[in-house]
């Protein structure tokens, strides 16, 4: 078979350090989540592209999210969502946002505490599989919290720009928290990567 030079293709970030999110997420969770679930989406999309849709091999995660539905959308969106999730977290770095992001959070939510309460409440309340996002509206530059269901991704709305995300699928927290999703959501603040969040601001 001829070797293709891929201009761009759907992708996933390299594996984060297994101990990069302790003590909130155990090494076991990170390992399973990345090597089974996240990698699983990549492998399924690759197999599908190679056997039925070679045109997808020239499309990035974002391309596929914006043009496909069904199976291809689900895999590509989960690739995007999981990349964003790993990037949204780190057990090093600041405990809270600063500068412009901190100021915008206060403007939009009243205080950092109220923001956290609202966000983690939505993680706890999301029914079934999904994601909770801090996003910025492109037109107003306002911050908003949005939920997406299953593989839903906010970039399908042209006006939304993601800042942070928390995975609310059960596989994200079941090993470490069993059914206690609210505890996971509460602990999650200890590993949020505020530097990454700030870097996403428009």
């Amino acid at each position, binding site marked *: 078979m001829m070797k293709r030079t891929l201009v761009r293709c759907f992708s996933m970030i390299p594996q984060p350090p297994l101990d990069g999110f302790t003590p909130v997420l155990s090494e076991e969770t990170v390992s399973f989540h990345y090597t089974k679930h996240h990698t699983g989406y990549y492998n399924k999309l690759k197999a599908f592209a190679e056997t039925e849709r070679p045109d997808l091999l020239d499309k990035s995660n974002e391309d596929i999210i914006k043009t496909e539905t069904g199976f291809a959308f689900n895999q590509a969106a989960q690739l995007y969502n999981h990349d964003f999730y790993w990037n949204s977290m780190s057990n090093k770095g600041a405990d809270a946002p600063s500068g412009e992001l901190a100021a915008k959070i206060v403007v939009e939510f009243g205080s950092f505490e109220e923001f956290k309460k609202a966000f983690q409440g939505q993680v706890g309340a999301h029914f079934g599989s999904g994601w909770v996002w801090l996003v910025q509206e492109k037109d107003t530059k306002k911050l908003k919290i949005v939920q997406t269901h299953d593989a839903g991704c906010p970039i399908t709305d042209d006006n939304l720009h993601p800042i942070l995300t928390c995975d609310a*699928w059960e596989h994200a927290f079941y090993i470490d928290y069993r*059914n206690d999703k609210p505890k996971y959501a509460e602990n999650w603040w200890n590993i949020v990567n505020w530097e990454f969040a700030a870097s996403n601001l428009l």
Partner: protein
Amino acid sequence: ALDPHIDKETMTIHHTKHHNTYVTNLNKAIEGSALAEKSVDELVADLNAVPEDIRTAVRNNGGGHANHSLFWTLLSPNGGGEPTGELAEEIKSTFGSFDQFKEKFAAAAAGRFGSGWAWLVVNNGKLEITSTPNQDSPLSEGKTPVLGLDVWEHAYYLNYQNRRPDYISAFWNVVNWDEVARLYSEAK
């Protein structure tokens, strides 16, 4: 009791935490209203009769309660094997063979993306395989479930992690076919 197919810790958490939460939240939603007189199956069979402001809560938590209540009756440590009698005949004539039925059911269970259930239902007297998202019940579509498999990750994660197909294969070892047959004869 369903070990090794479904582990004890999963059964315990599934029943005492997840199912229990659906019941609690359902009761909270319908407290004090006339809906509290209805059975949970009646509630989910007619969601349009539920006021809009609590309809989602009833759909989700009523569905969760109905689905899980049914699910526990369909599992048995003495389960497995094959159905017999009329149900076996109907499965054969509808799906070709018991193996073909299992294949199609497994495909529905594996193919349900995100959280949900796979079902064998009776619809207008006929057997069908379907799946529903989240805690939606086939009763809401006028179909009567006679066999169901919970494919929310909480149903299998501790023992199987992402290996949902392995969980589905193991499920056949604990199916209470007597109960499925009874439900079928009532529904057809």
